[in-house]
């Protein structure tokens, strides 16, 4: 579903850039302990990759990564992962998000803290990514009563009149 006014430069460049941006987002999430970054920044980068594809190719692109319907449930799972990891520590007698209190057999306390922080970062990243994609989809979407089968905007629904397209031919 590409609009006919889209140029090949934008399509190719956004296809190449989206993957690089998402790879960098994963790096920012995983490397958040040691360097600037973390769940929020990495999630925003992951969402930027998806949104870039949808801006270039239309709202049907990148549905296999975050589909429009699954965005809000995935965001809830991310928030649950974030809050639940903190709450589990309360069950073992620690403070909220005091990961060292969780007794994991065979793993020392600093390593447990490491994995606890990583799990929280993943939760935040998932929530931020899907919520940003959901906001973008909401702004793009047409109301249900004006929805056309197939979804492609035809020439008559374009707000710009055809004769205004190319100013040199006027």
């Amino acid at each position: 579903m590409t609009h006919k006014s889209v140029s090949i430069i934008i399509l190719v460049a956004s296809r190449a850039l989206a993957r690089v941006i998402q790879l960098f987002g994963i790096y920012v999430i995983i490397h958040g302990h040691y360097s600037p970054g973390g769940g929020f920044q990495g999630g925003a980068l992951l969402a930027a990759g998806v949104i870039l594809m949808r801006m270039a190719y239309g709202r049907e692109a990148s549905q296999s990564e975050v589909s429009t319907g699954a965005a809000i449930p995935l965001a809830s799972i991310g928030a649950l992962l974030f809050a639940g990891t903190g709450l589990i520590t309360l069950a073992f007698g620690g403070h909220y998000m005091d990961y060292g209190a969780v007794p994991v057999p065979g793993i020392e306390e600093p390593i447990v803290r490491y994995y606890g922080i990583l799990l929280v970062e993943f939760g935040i990243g998932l929530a931020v990514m899907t919520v940003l994609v959901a906001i973008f989809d909401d702004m793009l979407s047409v109301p249900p009563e004006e929805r056309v089968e197939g979804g492609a905007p035809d020439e008559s629904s374009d707000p710009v009149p055809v004769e205004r397209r190319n100013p040199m031919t006027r």
Partner: protein
Amino acid sequence: MSVLQNGVAGVLIVLGLIIMLVGSIGILRLPDFYTRSHAASKVDTTGIIFLLLGLAVLQGWNLAMVKLMIAVAIIMLANPVAIHALSRAAWMHGERPWMRKKEGED
């Protein structure tokens, strides 16, 4: 840190700053959307690339320099495409380029 490294880095950074200054003046002075976006893309692309190259020379050979070079590569790819998309959208929606007034025309 050798004198040569400092000198090359200084020249590159000052060059980037000069390009940024010229581009900023261009944004304020040029007559219409297309020429202004042309000037803005010079600030975004060339100026920042020279600045980052200067910083990379200042760093020497380490991981930070590699990250700066990755940033340079991504800016080289992304910024011209962004300006192209902006100008193309303006063209498609009927923004007319600025032209000199002809003789006898008001």
